[in-house]
């Protein structure tokens, strides 16, 4: 717990907090323009540490006492979230930012499957998806599919949802030092993982592009598109409302646990005239009680380790599966200053395969070449 937090913030500091929500579409350009202009920039902002503190230099380093509070109180997989080159800048704000699969219990039971004993390997998982899929006898789109696949929207999001498959196949998007894409983004393991992923739509037909994204599919009420069975990264409040049970499947031995492609953090703008007060505010809210209250207000998982076994978290359907995730090896992370550009190039290959525009190998080769060019630019920027 950080000292001084008992005093009321506004009374003590003379400052109140105003939140401005910037639409996600185009937020980076707006952030960048404001930070460059300085005068119209916010004092605090939500973003990726490796982007705003790494690709750019807009972040104020966190005071040492606060940094220690977070280093001491975060789950181990989050230790590097909010850091750039070993120094802490950002406060991780999202605990549930890893992929889990969620089961529609009713559909599982109807197909003769046991939702309390989810598949442990991808072979068994695929077999179950086939049982859950109801094909159209006329050869059209299935009337029900087993897996809600992420196929639309920004390629970074599509990359994010595919990476658990890639990691399960032993592939990684970039080298461990994050300085190479060739040989990793297009490795034989990556080609095999993307082949499996593309086949879900194009060969096995247990997933369909016609149903929209997992969130779209689960949000509709009509029977034809009732919730797909296994959903990656469904919004937590959606899951709670729709009786989707947190039942992450281990799927393949050694499959990595919790990790994130784009971890969100709260940051303080380096050139803000109010940055000292901003850190005072961050200090004021940095304690287990506020962490719990803040996240519970939105129905999402708290961040502080002390809260992971609270009554609120224990009452959630994903309590056990989240614990299981945290017990597993931390998967590769890609906190590269140009992670957006890299994940966009990679995601284009995934989209290309899903929509039948090409084969995994040539599309991944093309992605690796684009990523190499992009990361070279990044290296030049940092020098």
């Amino acid at each position, binding site marked *: *717990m950080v000292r001084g937090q008992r005093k009321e913030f506004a009374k003590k500091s003379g*400052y*109140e*907090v105003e*939140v*401005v929500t910037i639409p*996600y579409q185009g937020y980076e350009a707006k952030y960048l323009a404001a930070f460059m202009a300085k005068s119209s920039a916010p004092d*605090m902002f939500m973003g990726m540490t490796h982007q705003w503190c790494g690709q750019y230099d807009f972040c104020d380093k966190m005071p040492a006492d606060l940094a220690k509070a977070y280093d001491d109180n975060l789950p181990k997989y989050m230790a590097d979230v909010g850091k750039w080159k070993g120094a802490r800048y950002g406060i991780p704000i999202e605990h549930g930012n890893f992929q889990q699969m969620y089961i529609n219990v009713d559909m599982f039971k109807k197909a003769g499957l046991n939702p309390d004993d989810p598949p442990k390997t991808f072979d068994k998982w695929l077999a179950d998806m086939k049982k859950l899929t109801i094909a159209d006898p006329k050869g059209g789109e299935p009337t029900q599919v087993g897996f809600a696949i992420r196929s639309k929207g920004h390629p970074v999001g599509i990359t994010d949802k595919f990476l658990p498959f890639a990691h399960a196949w032993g592939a990684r998007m970039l080298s461990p030092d994050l300085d190479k894409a060739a040989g990793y983004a297009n490795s034989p393991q990556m080609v095999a993982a993307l082949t499996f992923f593309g086949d879900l739509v194009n060969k096995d037909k247990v997933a369909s592009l016609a149903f929209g994204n997992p969130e779209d599919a689960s949000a509709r009420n009509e029977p034809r598109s009732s919730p797909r069975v296994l959903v990656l990264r469904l919004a937590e409040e959606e899951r709670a409302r729709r009786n989707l049970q947190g039942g992450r499947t281990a799927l393949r031995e050694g499959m990595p646990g919790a990790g994130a492609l784009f971890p969100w953090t*709260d940051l303080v703008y380096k050139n803000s005239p109010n940055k000292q007060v901003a850190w005072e505010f961050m200090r004021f809210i940095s304690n287990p009680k506020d962490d719990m209250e803040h996240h519970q207000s*939105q129905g999402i998982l708290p961040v502080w380790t002390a809260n992971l076994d609270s009554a609120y978290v224990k009452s959630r359907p994903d309590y056990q599966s989240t614990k299981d995730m945290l017990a597993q090896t931390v998967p590769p992370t890609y906190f590269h200053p140009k992670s957006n550009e890299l994940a966009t190039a990679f995601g284009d290959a995934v989209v290309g395969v899903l929509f039948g525009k090409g084969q995994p190998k040539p599309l991944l080769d093309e992605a690796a070449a684009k990523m190499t060019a992009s990361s070279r630019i990044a290296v030049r920027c940092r020098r």
Partner: protein
Amino acid sequence: MSYQFVEEFAGIKGELMKRRGWIMVILAAVMVAVTIPNASFAQQKKLVLWTHWEQNPDFNKWYEAKGKSSPRSPGTR
């Protein structure tokens, strides 16, 4: 009507006019305060936080609520 009466009446009228002027000024100030709700005589300073988490409005609002002066009973932490 005597000259004295006229002078006295003029004095009362002048006093009333002065008071009326003050009343108008006060009324105008009240109107400004009422029509511009955020304006206050002692301007509250603000910390501005930008977020793009459109999907989590309650999470975002919490920062504002926490940043306001609200009485907290002792021993709540």
